[in-house]
């Protein structure tokens, strides 16, 4: 017990406490100047925007994949099921260089897209692709058990009462999945917004255009601007926490509604 708390403090709390301590040593003016710098604001917009877009893509396809895995039989299902966790297991740097090579104008996927004038690598689209990759398991793994646990009897009852399959899917099954769906979305977003390894390679890192906030933190640290780095980090944490709190509130609301 004592050891638990001691280790927790030593490894996690004391280092994390450095954030507020470091910030309190700065004046409001200095903090504001850092975080209102156009380059920093652009990076927030990019990080949050790309993370939201990626989480939305994952919400759609993650639901589809979870549904197919939970409900439909097909050959090789076990392998596919295990493969879902690849983005968890594959080091982010490896994912980063691989996606960059694939989507570069001469890559396997980049070349065909380039013919249609779609540039992926070194654009915000590329950043979104990388974030889709790392966020996918969060949505699938949150939804899959919920779909597996769905009570077939409810579907049977609705069907025997004359509901069409489409009605059952959209009006009965989907509302059940909302809380888990939201959780998956939030987890995917939270991971994506702070992601670094898989993004830096494909991003191109042009200031104002494809420079993500975590990279700016590193840049500031390398210039020994610890205060600036801390200020940027604090805003990032605020963004994540706000979203997680919002989702928690939404979830409470939707499960209350479901209870009636």
């Amino acid at each position, binding site marked *: 017990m004592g*050891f*638990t708390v001691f*280790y*927790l403090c030593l*490894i*996690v709390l004391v*280092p*994390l406490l*450095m*954030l507020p*301590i*470091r910030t309190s040593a700065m004046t409001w003016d200095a903090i504001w100047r850092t975080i209102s710098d156009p380059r920093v604001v652009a990076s927030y917009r990019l990080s949050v925007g790309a993370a939201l877009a990626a989480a939305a893509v994952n919400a759609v396809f993650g639901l*589809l*994949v979870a*549904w*197919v895995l939970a409900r*439909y*039989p*097909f050959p090789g*299902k*076990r392998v*596919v099921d*295990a*493969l879902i*966790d*690849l983005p*968890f*297991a*594959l*080091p*982010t*740097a*490896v994912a*980063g*260089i*691989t996606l960059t*090579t694939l989507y570069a104008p001469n890559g396997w996927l980049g070349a065909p897209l380039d013919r249609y004038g779609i540039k992926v690598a070194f654009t915000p689209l590329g950043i979104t692709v990388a974030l889709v*990759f790392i966020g*996918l398991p*969060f949505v699938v*793994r*949150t939804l*899959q058990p919920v779909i*597996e646990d769905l009570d077939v009897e409810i579907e049977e009852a609705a069907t025997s009462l004359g509901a069409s*399959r489409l009605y059952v*899917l959209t009006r009965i099954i989907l509302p059940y999945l909302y809380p888990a769906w939201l959780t998956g979305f939030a*987890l995917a977003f939270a991971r994506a*917004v*702070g992601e*670094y*390894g898989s993004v830096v*390679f494909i991003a191109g890192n042009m200031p104002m255009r494809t420079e993500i906030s*975590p990279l700016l933190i*590193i840049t500031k*640290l390398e210039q020994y601007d*610890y205060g600036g780095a*801390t200020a940027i980090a604090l805003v990032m*944490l605020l963004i*994540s926490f706000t979203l*997680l709190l919002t989702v928690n509130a939404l979830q409470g609301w939707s499960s209350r509604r479901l209870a009636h």
Partner: protein
Amino acid sequence: MAHVDTGRARDPKKGLTEPLLVRWGLTVVALAFLTIFLLVPLAAVFTEAFRRGWDAYASAVSEPDAVAAMKLTLLAAAIAVPANLVFGVCAAWAIGKFQFRGKQVLTTLIDLPFAVSPVISGMVFVLLFGRQGFLGTWLADHDMRIVFAVPGIVLATIFVSFPFVAREIIPVMEATGSQEEEAARVLGASGLQTFFRVTLPSIKWGLLYGVILCNARAMGEFGAVSVVSGHIRGLTNTLPLHVEILYNEYQFQAAFAVASLLAFLAIVTLVLKTIVEYRTRRSMDRQPAVVPAFRAADI
């Protein structure tokens, strides 16, 4: 996972599943998505790694800097995994078997490293131990280096892989309660005996699962380690950082050769994970126990 075989999917009663064409369509779309986003990248790692043949591959992974990076990665994991294993068991023990105030807070705090960006995880150590950091002057006076040296890398690795073991076995410990341990103690078993003969068997699969995930993260961490490393070749480079350096020097084949080692590690992780999940389900069939909270939020 997807092995709830109630026969409903295989023998669909009319109206209780989607039309055949819709089912096929959805399956094909889902598999196509997974192929493009998961399978193709995995295949690309190995294709690129062997692009210039076996010799180039072998020389890229046996080059001194690569070997040094491998050693450092193994060292960091060899310290981080056991440390977090011991902590995980202690934390789960405290949370699962005892009642105390602030338990919920403790559980939340354990998950904290998952909630912060890897870059911020690395940054806090620079703020603490860096030259202009909180303890920077003191460390410099005593001629000690933590950040931009091996200790920093180990610390950052411990930090990011911290919650894995604890969060896998906390639910198991909570569900089994403490009656069995109490019974063992009453029957005269010593504390250690109780732990090894009663507690350990009940948590072994959750423990193993946590260790596998913890190890994968410890060996593969990039963002946090990158911040504290200082990128000194042969000294403070882990495998993922070595991949980055090679890639940025346009040595693509070498970068992918080293990356393929990490990708192989990822595949081994997935296989082990699947086996452990399978065993957990089997042991659950025999004796009603608890599913460790696998699934989402593993990272």
